[in-house]
């Protein structure tokens, strides 16, 4: 092995891949039949980077050569950067050897587009095929789909991979036209459609023929870049919602744009990473997926951006004082879920516990509710003193000032669910 050359390639191609924030290795229950590895349904973080992200997969590009010139991408053809390309065998060897040492759960392979989309896609598929068939590898494989790749290759990819993804990156069509003139949203959407259809077809035939394998058993995901163009949060969550509704995506990731390229079309390189905004979008995403909020409840045309100073659920509650206080002893689940400071788990615990007791703030605290927020929004069987002096005029002020004294907004972990 030419270790120095390999190191150099790995540095270049891992560095270029790191802006894809997805790291999940969950959702695979692949078994090990005397081969190497298995899936872990809930995923495993084998390490953590100094910036606080989970390291679960070997996340690399096959190559950062690219014929396209997307302004937001370090691999764009006009960028003066070092280029490298792995051979199929090199990626296979790295994956197997890292996996055997318990460094990783598997491989996340993406690529710049060299020659043409299908040529690239075929290489990616070949890596997965080799891992599965020659090395009997049952660890996690996440393959990136290449925009405009042919349906046949997409189907083959899903046969070997656990997860497939294709990044929409720029949420609006106009933004994409500006920054990536060679791409249209449709180039990314049509592979998504193929994946959705295949998943459904395989599921159908599994009902009849038990031995039907699973197609992309961990589903598909996508990523949106936040803050590279002028899109509003409302536009972003509308797009995300469509991806969930129409294409059955498991996850949409939001990646705050890291300004490092000089280009008049992009934010200045001196501007910061929009980390808080990114965090708020994840929270909005959770509200849509698990808390029964519709897009239009979270934001609307006259109010198109998430409040950076408070989480979107609290923001919604502030705008809807008429819906509160919620009678904790009797309200149905979907209403309980709307109380700021009450998470999914605590909501279910509340339903259980209230059969035995008349709940008090103390109970809620033990259950794990963030009571410093929740206390302004709940009616107990006994009086809630926190509501005594609140009226429509001072409501916002009281809630906000009590929270402000508790904590400042931190720029930390982005997937924290502060709901």
């Amino acid at each position: 092995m030419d270790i120095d050359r390999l190191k150099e390639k790995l540095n270049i191609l891992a560095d270029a891949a790191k802006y894809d924030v997805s790291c999940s290795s969950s959702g695979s229950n692949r078994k090990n039949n005397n081969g190497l590895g298995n899936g872990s349904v809930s995923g495993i973080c084998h390490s953590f980077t100094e910036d606080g992200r989970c390291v679960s997969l070997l996340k690399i590009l096959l190559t950062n050569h690219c014929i396209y010139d997307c302004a937001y991408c370090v691999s764009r053809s006009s960028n003066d950067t070092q280029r490298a390309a792995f051979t199929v065998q090199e990626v296979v060897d790295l994956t197997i050897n890292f996996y055997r040492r318990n460094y990783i759960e598997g491989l996340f392979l993406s690529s710049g587009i060299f020659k043409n989309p299908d040529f690239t896609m075929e290489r990616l598929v070949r890596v997965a095929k080799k891992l599965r068939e020659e090395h009997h590898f049952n660890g996690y494989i996440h393959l990136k789909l290449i925009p405009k790749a042919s349906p046949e290759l997409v189907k083959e990819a899903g046969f070997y991979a656990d997860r497939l993804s294709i990044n929409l990156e720029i949420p609006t069509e106009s933004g994409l036209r500006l920054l990536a003139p060679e791409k249209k949203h449709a180039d990314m959407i049509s592979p998504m459609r193929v994946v959705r259809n295949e998943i459904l077809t395989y599921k159908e035939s599994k009902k009849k023929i038990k031995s039907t394998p699973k197609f992309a058993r961990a589903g598909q995901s996508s990523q949106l870049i936040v803050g590279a163009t002028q899109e509003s949060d409302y536009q972003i969550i509308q797009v995300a919602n469509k991806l969930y509704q129409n294409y059955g995506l498991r996850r949409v990731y939001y990646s705050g744009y890291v300004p490092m390229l000089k280009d008049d079309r992009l934010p200045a390189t001196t501007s910061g990473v929009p980390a808080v905004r990114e965090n708020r979008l994840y929270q909005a995403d959770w509200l849509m997926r698990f808390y029964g909020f519709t897009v239009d409840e979270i934001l609307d045309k006259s109010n198109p951006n998430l409040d950076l100073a408070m989480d979107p659920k609290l923001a919604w509650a502030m705008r809807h004082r008429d819906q509160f206080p919620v009678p904790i002893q009797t309200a149905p689940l979907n209403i309980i879920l709307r109380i700021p400071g009450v998470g999914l788990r605590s909501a279910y615990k509340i339903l259980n516990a209230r059969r035995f007791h008349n709940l008090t703030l103390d109970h809620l605290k033990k259950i794990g509710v963030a009571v410093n927020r929740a206390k302004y929004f709940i009616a107990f069987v006994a009086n809630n003193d926190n509501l005594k002096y609140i009226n429509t005029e001072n409501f916002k002020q009281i809630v906000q000032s009590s929270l402000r004294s508790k904590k400042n907004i931190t720029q930390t972990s982005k997937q924290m669910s502060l709901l």
Partner: protein
Amino acid sequence: MITLAYDQSFAGFLTVIFELYQRFDAGKQLTNCFNIVKYRKHQDDLFENFFLITTDADKSSRVEKKLMQLLGSQGIKQLIWAFLSEDKKIENCLFSVIRYAIDNPKQDVLKNFAHPDVLQLAKWVKSVRRERHRMIAFVRFEKMDSDVFLARIEPDFNVLPLIIKHFKSRYKNQKWIIYDMRRQYGVFSDMQITYPIESIDDQILRNSKKYFSAEEINYQALWKDYFNSVNIKERNNPKLHIKQLPRRYWKYLTEKLPV
């Protein structure tokens, strides 16, 4: 107070429970009349009423059967996990819970968190589960020239028995050893069967580098490089980092070792 010492095995502990009821009439006494300790040499000088209990397979399995009736396999699992914390007072805590279960055979006693020892037990289970989870993630194998993949660990709690199954189903086509440096025992898998091992040549454990397979250093270097190059420096967060990857694990984490 009566002090009972045993050999630190779970079967030994169950034998103590057997003797407590058989010989010491524990059912009629207060739990704090008894003190169960892990045996150490010359310990008998320290305590007045001292008994060394010899582990007995028959006695321990009779207790196990009884516990199975009272607590179910899930309950026994909790006892074992808490036991593996090896805390100084864990035996007394477990004894108190077992006694509570025996006195209240109709109740699901492990759910009554108002009982201080039940609560304490649950806390230990939680801590041990957390370390087990971390070990599954943080074990790092090094490939030796004999083609065996060796991992050294030093967990706070004795979680090695709890992670074997995971690694057994994951690595079926490589030989591996996981060795607990602190407790000085390990497990070896020859791809078919796993065996307990009591010792490994100290030379190999202290100076594993000398026995690496040819490519080992290269893959370690590649992994370290990878780990560093995926970091986005603009977002560094040292406090969070230490929380996620506590310093005490760094000793065997390839990516955290100096080159």
